[in-house]
């Protein structure tokens, strides 16, 4: 029983160490090369468990065949008109031709070769980026869709990205066995000098705009007030005219009544005077009369007003 257990344990250990020495695994996102005494085999693309001779007879190189992404530096790119624009691109790449990749990259291991490939790709993409931007853009304004930008000089992001991709990809495939899958614009900007100019322009524009707006607003408010004053004055004039008309109508009516009273003007005058006298003599009034007035004439034995009238008649 003991022997069986020992045999099983020994067998398991042998299997484990043997599998590490004599097999290797290729993941589905990897490509492998077996270097047999310094000579590389055909690339192994199929995933699974593969046999190999132990080191130093055979050595396995594995590469990640997934799409890797890399960004360019955020630096100046010259446009057609000699103006510069700050741009940063990114691109995705993958090993397309493993044999070509192996022969065109250098490095002690897979990671070093991948880094070397990225370095070479950066040179290719940078060169194409400079060429293509120079071909399509006249200035920084070409990258914004402003009203003042003419149709032809306006840069279409998609077209520019595709143009760089096409050119860079053909070079990358031929020189490195690498396929560039996509290129994209990450950032677009302007150099520091132009940036300061843009900032100053923003401040100037807004300061001027605020001054203009306050001026226009004040004018508008003044106009509303002037109209209100004018309307008020017009309305007052109209009201005064209406008041005059109303009073004139009342006076005309009164005149009609006075005409009726012409049959005894003395009576009319007497009634008016009497009314006026009663209205004017109210509280705290002092009347200074001579003895010929009113009933006080009797004190002198004068004739009554009625007698006077009779004598006149």
């Amino acid at each position, binding site marked *: 029983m003991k022997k069986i257990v020992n045999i099983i344990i020994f067998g398991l250990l042998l299997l484990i160490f043997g599998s590490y020495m004599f097999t290797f695994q290729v*993941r*589905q*996102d990897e490509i492998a090369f077996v270097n047999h005494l310094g000579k590389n085999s055909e690339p192994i693309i199929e*995933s*699974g*468990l593969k046999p190999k001779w132990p080191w130093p007879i055979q050595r396995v190189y594995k590469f990640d065949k*997934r*799409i890797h992404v890399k960004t360019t530096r955020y630096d100046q790119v010259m446009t057609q008109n000699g103006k510069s624009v*700050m741009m940063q691109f990114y691109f*995705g790449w993958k090993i397309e031709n493993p044999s070509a990749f192996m022969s065109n990259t250098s490095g002690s291991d897979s990671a070093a070769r991948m880094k070397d490939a990225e370095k070479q790709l950066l040179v290719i993409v940078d060169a194409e980026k400079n060429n293509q931007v120079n071909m399509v853009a006249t200035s920084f304004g070409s990258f*914004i*869709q*402003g009203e003042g930008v003419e149709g032809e000089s306006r840069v279409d*992001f998609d077209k520019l990205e595709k143009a760089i991709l096409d050119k860079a990809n053909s070079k990358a495939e031929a020189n490195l066995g690498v396929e560039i899958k*996509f290129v994209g614009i*990450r*950032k677009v*900007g302007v150099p520091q000098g132009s940036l300061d100019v*843009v900032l100053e322009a*923003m*401040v100037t524009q*807004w300061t001027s*705009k*605020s001054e203009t*707006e306050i001026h226009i*607003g*004040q004018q508008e*408010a003044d106009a*509303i*007030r002037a*109209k209100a*004053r004018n*309307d*008020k004055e017009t309305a007052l004039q109209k009201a005064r005219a*209406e008041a005059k008309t*109303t*009073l004139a109508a*009342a006076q005309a009516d*009164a005149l009609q*009544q006075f005409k*009726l*009273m012409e*049959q*005894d003007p003395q*009576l*009319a005058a*007497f*009634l008016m005077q009497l*009314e006026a006298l009663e209205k004017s*003599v*109210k*509280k705290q009034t002092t009347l200074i*009369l*001579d003895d*010929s007035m*009113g*009933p*006080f004439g009797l004190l002198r034995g004068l004739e009554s*007003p*009625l007698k006077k009238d009779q004598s006149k008649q």
Partner: protein
Amino acid sequence: MGNDSTKLKGAPEVDLGNEAGARAMEGALQSSFTILKLVIAVLVVYLIFSNTFAVDQDSEGAIVLRFGQSRTIDAEEVYKAGIRFAWPYPIDEKVEIKRERPVKSVAAWHAPVGRVAIGDSSEKRKVDALHDGYAITKDDKIIYVKAEMIYRVSYPSSFAFDFASATKILQLILDNGLTYSASQLNLSEILENPTKFAEKTQLRAAKLVRGYDLGVEVAQINVRGEDVKLPFYTQDAYDKINGVRAKIENELKKANSENEAVQLAIGAKSEAAETSLSALSGEVATIRNQANNQAAALRASVDSLANRFKDIIEKYPDPVSRRRYMEQMYYETMERIADNKDIKVILVSKTGKASPTKLRLLINQPPPEVEEEEETEK
């Protein structure tokens, strides 16, 4: 073992102690071996199930690779919730996938304040072309903007095995989307409507995601109000415009309310108000009311006079009798005046024609009390 026991039986009594020790040792070793076997068995079981894992519903998924080859790529199976068995590495390997994740973009956002030289105050801090990120708008303005994109993995196999760093690519796609969308919209549109900006960015990002075959869907892009900011250097100037607008609005509001008050006063607000004097107010109404009152008073006075005149004429058609009646009225009036305690009547003797007595009617003039007192004293 049996032979050893037989030997022990015949041995002298002195050896009995050694035998007992040996037995105890043997027993201890046996129990140790049993424990060791148990531990090994537990370890083996643990080893076998060490790669077994559970998948949460809706939030994550997993792909098991056997010798480097995925066993399932179907999204439904990948996201199926429950316990999954996998042999220990290197036989099986599990790749976990989060179903929905956010990525953030700060490529167009300024560097943390204080990291670069900012001058005397943050208001004077200009944009640093190298350290600060920013976007440029359609109307040639600089703006800081950041965003968050939530993506959903729809093809787990592509997402996990076709891209070395899918998350980084998604972040770059979001950067691209922000740069692109900013160039398509005016500054005011972005500042006032960040949602519109986010929608435009989402369209761009979704297009790129499809183009790159990332195996994900862009679920949402969030750009909140605080994710959009003007450069510090320009903020004051921009705020001034808003301040001016508020001031103008206030000024216009005042002017309009003044105008409304005038219109209301002159009765131009409604036709009904023009016809109804009571509905009017202000100076116009006052003028109209005064005129109407005066006219009414005049009419009333004249009408009353005319009626009185008519009554007297009708009652006293004979002029003589009318004169008598007038005299009567005159004396009655004088009597009423004389009877009134509030009216003082001072009678003076009429002098000759050369120096006629001047009569004065003092209305509402109270006689000076002091003088009166003096007179009474005299």
